[in-house]
C-alpha cells in the first residue's frame, strides 16, 4: 500500500475548496451554502494538518490552528443557523434570492 504524499493531500484539499466555492455560488438554499462554507474551512484544515505533518513533523502549530478553526467554525455555524431561522420566520423561505431587501 502506497503512503499518500503531501501532494495527494493538497490535491484533495484544493478539490474540497473549489467544491465548497462552487457550492457557495450556485446553491440558493442557505443551509447548503452554510455547508459549502464548512467544506472550505475543512479544506483549509486539511492544508494545515498536511503541512504540519510533512514539513515540520516535530511541531504542533498546524494542529493548534486546526483546532481553533474547528472551534470557530462551530461558533459560526451556530450564528449562521440562528440567522437562517430568523430569515425563515420573516420570509417563510430560506432562498437566498428572496432575501435581498438590504439594498440601495
Amino acid at each position: 500500500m502506497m503512503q499518500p504524499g503531501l501532494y495527494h493531500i493538497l490535491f484533495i484539499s484544493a478539490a474540497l475548496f473549489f467544491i465548497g466555492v462552487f457550492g457557495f455560488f450556485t446553491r440558493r438554499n442557505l443551509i447548503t451554502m452554510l455547508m459549502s462554507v464548512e467544506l472550505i474551512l475543512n479544506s483549509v484544515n486539511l492544508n494545515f494538518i498536511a503541512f504540519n505533518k510533512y514539513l515540520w513533523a516535530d511541531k504542533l502549530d498546524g494542529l493548534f490552528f486546526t483546532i481553533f478553526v474547528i472551534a470557530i467554525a462551530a461558533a459560526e455555524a451556530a450564528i449562521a443557523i440562528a440567522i437562517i431561522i430568523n430569515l425563515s420566520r420573516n420570509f417563510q423561505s430560506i432562498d437566498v434570492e428572496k432575501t435581498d431587501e438590504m439594498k440601495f
Partner: protein
Amino acid sequence: MPNPTYIILILLLPLASFLLMGLFGRSYIKNASGLISTAMLFVATCLAFYVAYGYFFEYGNVNGVYQKLIPFKYTWLEFSKGVSIDMGILLDPITAMMLVVVTLISLMVHIYSLGYMKGEERFATYYSFLGLFTFSMLGLVIASNIFQIYIFWELVGVSSFLLIGYYFEKPSAVAACKKAFIVTRFADLGFLIGILILSFYAGTLDFNTLIQRLTSPESMEFKTAVASSFLGISALTWGMVLVFVGGAGKSAMFPLHIWLPDAMEGPTPVSALIHAATMVVAGVFLVARLFPVFALSTPDALHIVAYVGATSALIAAIIACTQTDIKRVLAFSTMSQIGFMMFALGVSKYGGEEGLGYTASMFHLFTHALFKALLFLGAGAVIHFVHSNDMNDMGGLRKHLPITHATFLIACLAISGVPPFAGFFSKEEILLAAFQHNPTIYWIALLTSGLTAFYMFRLYFSIFWNKEYHPHGEHHGEGGFAMMMPLVLLAVGAAAAGFIPFGKFVSSDGKALISEFHLQFSIAPVALGLVGILTALLLYKKQNSKPDTIASSLNALYKAAYHKFYIDELYLFITKKILFNLVGRPAAWFDKNVVDGMVNATGNSTQTISEKIKGFQSGKVQEYAIYFLAGATALAVCGIYLWK
C-alpha cells in the same frame, strides 16, 4: 500717586448698574431700577470729583507740570516684547476733566430720566443701556493703550446703537440706529487701520511710549515712519489722518455727520448724553489724546483736522438755521460746536502760549457739555409738554414752563457766547487761537458764531414767544422735581463754568497757561452774536411773515440748507446706485454663480456617479461573494506576479 481703586470703581459702578438692570431689572426691580442706577452713578460721580480734585490739587502737579500718571496697568495680551494690549489707566488733565464731565452729565441724565421716562415699558432696560454707555465712555477716557481705547470706542458705538434704537417699534428709530452704527463703524475702519499703521511703526500700543517715540525726531521709529511713504505722503501722516477719520465719524464731522441728525430718534435724555458727554466728544478727545503727535510730527494731518472742523462748523450752522424740528436744530448745533473744538485743536501748536487752541478746545468741550446737556434736557421738557418735536406746534410756552424757559435762555446765551456765560469764555479762546494762527478759519469761525446766536435764538423765540400757546386736552404742567433739578444745576454750571481758570489745569504740555483776556478782541464776536440775537428777535418774537419772505427770497440756498445740502441723498445715490450696482451686484453674481456653482457642481457630480454605481449594492449575498472572490483572486494574482 492716586489710588487706582477709586478710578476702577468709577468705571465698574456703571458697569454693575448695566449688568444688574440688564439681568434682573425687568423682572425683579422694575420700578426701583432707575433709583438704584442713579444712586450708583451718584457714587461714581462723587468718586470722579474726588479723583479730579486729587489730581489737580494734590499729586498731579509736579514742579508746575501736570504729569501723565499711570496708576494701574495690567498686561492683557502680549504679542511680542513691547507690543501688548493692556488694560490700564492713564491719568492726565484731560482724563481727569473728562471723568468729571462724563459722570456729571450722565448723572444729570439719569436723574432727569426718572421723570422723563416714567411709566415706560422698558424702563429698566433703558437704565441698563445708560449704564453701559457711561461705562464705555469712561473706559475710553481712561484708556492707557491705543487698543484699549479702540475697544471702548466700539462699545460706545454699540451702546449708542442700542439707545438710539430704544423705541424699536418705530421704523424710523430702527433706520436711525442702523445708520448711526454703520456710518461710525465705517469710520472706525479708518481708525483701526490708523492704529495698525501707528503701532507698526512705533512698535508699541501704549500711549505714552507711542507719543514719545513718534514725537522725538532722533528716534528710529520716527525716522522709519517718516521715511516710508505711500502716494507721496508719509506713513505717519497716513496713520494720523486715518485715526482722525475714526474720530470724525464718532464726532459727526463733515462728511461723516449724516448719522447725527437721525440719532434724534432716541429718547431725548439720550440725545443729551450723546451730544454733551459721550460719543460725539470721543473724536475730539482722541485727537487731543494724540495731540503731541499731530502737532509735532504731522502738521499736515492737523491742517486737515482744522479745515474739516471749520467746514463742519459752518455747514452745520447754516443747516441749523432752516430746520424746524427742535432736536435737529440742536443736533446741528452740536455738530457746529464740535467743529469749533476740532478746528481749535487744528490751529493749535504744541506747548506754551502757542498751545492756546488745545486749552480752548478742551475748555469748550467742558462748557459745551454743560450747556448742550441743558439745551437737550430743556428741549425734552418742552417735548414732554407739547408732545411734538416741531417748532410750529410750539410758541408762547414761557408762561407754562417758567423754569424750563429760564434755564433754556441761560443755555442759549451761553452757546451764543454772550458774556459772562460759560460759552463766551471758551469761544473767545477758540477765536483767539484761530486768529493767531489761521485767519481763514478765524473768519469762518466768526461767521459761524454769529449764525450760532441767530439759530439758537430763533429756536428760543419760536418755542417760548412767537404765538400764544393754547393747551389742548389734559394738561400736566412742567415736569416734576426729577426733571427740574438737573436743569437748574446745569444752568448754574452753564452760567458760571466760564470763570474756571481752565488754562491753569489743562494745556497741551501740562504747564499752566495763563490766557489773558483781550477786551478789544472780544468786541467783534460778541457784537456779531448780539446782531444774530437781535435778528432772531425781530423775525421770531411775534408771529409774522418775514421769515417766510426771507426764506423764499433765498430760494435755492434755503432749500439746499433745508435739505441738509443733499448730503444724505448723495450718500444714498453713492450707496444705492453706484455701490450696489457696480460692486454689490457683481459680487452677488459671483457668489451665486461661481462660489455656489462650485459647491453645487460637487454635489451634483457626486449624485450622478452614485446613481450610476449604486446597482452594485443589490442586497444579494452571493453577488457580494463574487466581488469578494474576484478581489481576492486579483490580489493573489498581483501578489504572486509581483513577488516573483
